[in-house]
């Protein structure tokens, strides 16, 4: 299976959101998390396209949840990180930290 070695910016945020949400990571909630914490408003399509791409790369896995009444009897699709996904996140973080090292004092926002 193709393992991409590059984690896009949005992909990274989505993965982080999935991780934060723990057991309750479905498309809708991820979208909300992004809006709340990252200030990014993303369309439903984009969220799901990103999630599917992440799953294709092996960084996330999904499974069918329970159907609920409020959803008109439709089941959710729940997501979780795979170890590769976690590794990818850590790699990106490591890269960023390496780049920050020696890049000067933190700014006011840091």
């Amino acid at each position, binding site marked *: *299976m*193709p*393992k991409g*070695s590059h984690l896009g910016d949005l992909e990274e945020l989505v993965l982080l959101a999935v*991780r934060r949400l723990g*057991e309750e990571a*479905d*498309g*809708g909630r991820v979208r909300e998390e992004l809006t709340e914490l990252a200030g990014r408003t993303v*369309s*439903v*399509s*984009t969220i*799901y*396209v990103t999630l*599917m*791409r992440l*799953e*294709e790369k092996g960084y996330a*896995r*999904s*499974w*069918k949840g329970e*159907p*609920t*009444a*409020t*959803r*008109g*009897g*439709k*089941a*959710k*699709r729940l997501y*979780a*990180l*795979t*170890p590769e*996904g*976690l*590794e990818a996140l*850590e*790699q990106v973080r*490591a890269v960023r930290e390496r780049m920050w090292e020696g890049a000067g004092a933190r700014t006011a926002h840091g």
Partner: protein
Amino acid sequence: MAESRPGPAASDAGGPPRLALALLRRRLPDEVAEAIEGDLVDAHARALAEGRPRVVADALFWREVLTLRAGALRRAARRLEAVRPTTERNRPDRAANRDPDFWSKLPMHPNDFRYAIRRLLRSPGFTAVAVLSLALGIGANTAMFSIVNAVLIRDLPVTDRHELVEVYSSDSDGFQYATSSHPDYLDLREGNDVFRNVVATRTTIARIDLDGRPRVAFGELISWDYFQTLGIEMELGRSFVAEEDATPGTHPVVILGHRTWTQDFGADPDIVGSDVWLNGRPYTVVGVAPKAYTGSMPVLVTGFFTPLMMTDVLMSGGQLERRGSRSMFMKARLLPGVSIEQANASLSAFSAGLEEAYPETNERRLMSAVPSGKVSLNPAVDRILTPVAGLLLAVVGVVLLIACANLASFLLARAEDRRKEIAVRLALGAGRKRLVSQLLIETTLLALMGGVAGLVLAQWTVDLLMALQPPLPVPVDVEISLDRTVLLFTAGVSMLAGVAFGLVPALQATNPDVAPTLKSEATGSGVPRRFNLRGGLVVTQVAFSFVLLIGAGLFVRSLQKAQAIDPGFDTGPGALAWPMPELAGYETPEDVEAFYDVFEQRLLENPKVTHVALADRLPLGVGVQTNGYLLPGVPSETPDGDHDIDNANVSHGYFEAMGVEIVSGRAFARDDLDAERMVIVSQAFVDRYYPGEDLVGRSIQTAGGDDLRIVGIAANTKVRTLGESPRPYVYHLQGQVMFFGMQVVVKGQGTSEELVAITRATLDEVEPDMVLFEEIKTMNEHLALLLFPPRMAALLLSVFGALALLLAGIGVYGVVSYAVAKRTRELGIRMSLGASAGDVIRMAIGGGMRLVIVGGVVGIVLAAGVTWVASDYLFGISSTDVVTFATIPLLLTGVALFAAWVPARRASRVDPVRALRSE
């Protein structure tokens, strides 16, 4: 599309606009249709719940539907589907996968197993070869180990084994670990102060009558508290009680061995209390031994146990009282706090006391004790067998090593294919441990599969071996099974193998020094550094194969020589029968003699039969029979002053029938039976004790002082083994028939099979109820016994050698074909520049053959050293036999050449243009 069942909150009135819903469903790929629809419907419901007006909620819904990027969704869904089918993703998968943090801390993940399995399934050829190689190697090891386990290691189901000791008496030769006599045993039992208990056992055979067909069974006569002392519980019924072993012959009771109970009595649960007929007398069954205890003799399975006091009834009389008749094995349990040294000191003193009280029978007979845990068969024999067992295990160990080398080699190749991917992952900081563990999981899986397959193979091999029983006359049941110890051993070996051949490639492939790998992307010529390791593996394989094959060659040649040795008697067509009249109800010596007379007469009446002879022991037969003789003028160093010499009781027609020449004096004559006691001695006897003298007419004495007149000197025959130097032998004229019966040799015209048939028919006429020690056999079958060990050695080594050859061949093939694949571009260039197919082949083979030659040289040197160790077991050839050392290398080189030629030839047929384009 199915309409969803509307819940209480989403009635038609409260749900999203139907038209928008329909449009949504048409546009979405099924993959996320449900999730997205659910999300939007949920959002709509929530909007309503928050108090937004209907119209606004609907508008929002419409907006979402219209702005769906259906195309992107469909594309993403398609790509995902290709990699991970929906059915798989929808499987309920609760497991600990919920928490990625837990798993990321371990260098392992359940997913790794699934991926490993999938990778293995995707290359079925490699997986099959790998599992097969491992199965062969592991299977051979398991089979060999179970044999060694059955013979040497044996887990006896006794309690507190550390307290048990074997007690031996020394014999007249000074051999320390021999058997003891019944009176000595009784005295020790009563009069010792170091043992809680002393028990004894002796072996016997008896005729057992089953539904009218008599069979000879192997049994033991034991002390009444034998099982209790060992701590063994009966499966059925009870063990013996004291009164059953108090007076001779009064209590005919028996305990059945488990296998006898199952096979001959159908595991009858009501067997206790019924009668079993041994030697024509009824014995009441009081119990059945447990399955785990097969008797006190290793490998042999005891069929029945009776109290010691039945010895004189079951066997020829007088054994119980004779202090000088030593056939018992004694075991004892140490008293708490008593050490083995203390026990031995006590036994020394005890033996001295016996020596004083009974000087004729107990002079220089010393008792000693050895912890039972340290004894497999007998301390003296163990010393020889254990190294042999070690050698055999080493041989199969080598085979396994070769298999592992093969696999390591293949895995290195596969790892090389992934090296780009691995290098990149390493550069990005992936944990090396994690990568190594992923690779190891693959190899461990292979090892496990190989282990399981190996177990199956081992079971088949053991079954086969047990079917090919050695041609022993003793009615044995050989019990070799795959028990828990063996299974543990196999599992251990498999794991070791998995790590052994998996670790090195894994470490190699994930070597952090990856820069050269990344840079070598463009050249595509393979990294020479890597090749050395695989090359080294091939050299090792070839070297070990050499050692095995040369060993096999030596043993095969040795076998040929053994078969050509002249045993000193006529090995032409003949039949051998071994009747046991005493077991068939012939009670008096006169009856027995009469039987043999009639049998002999009737045989000679047949026109095809020319000679009939009797002997209680045949040359090259099983068992050793020696007696003490006093030789005037020849001093001896043994305690009794006599010489232990092999001997036999034979009828007067023996020498003619067996074709043994009388070089001086005369053979026995028919009327010699009533004359003085006379003997014939072998030439070796003369050469050893009275060199150059003429012994005809002189006398020697039995150990008891009776005179024996020498009437003739016979040519030498082999006595015990084919490889022995000439052995002194004494022939007595047939006297009183011993318990074991006389063997009948029938010689004549026609084939052995015809003579066997004639003998069988005649016996049926004379005494249809006669009990035979073993089936009537041909002379060749008799000789087969002696040839059994060298045959087995040659067979085993040849099989393992061929195995090794096969594996090494696969190894060479693999290396060459891989190297060729790597050099495809280069070879393509050469061919387009004008190199011929032949040139290409030669270039491709060159590398591989260089390895083979190096391996061969190493192998020959190793072989010369190793076989020197085995030179004792070789007949008539030296351990550096030229023929073997010349032909084997040729054979191996031929196979290697072929293994290298096949992929090379394939390379030469490739279209150069395609080769140039490929990477």
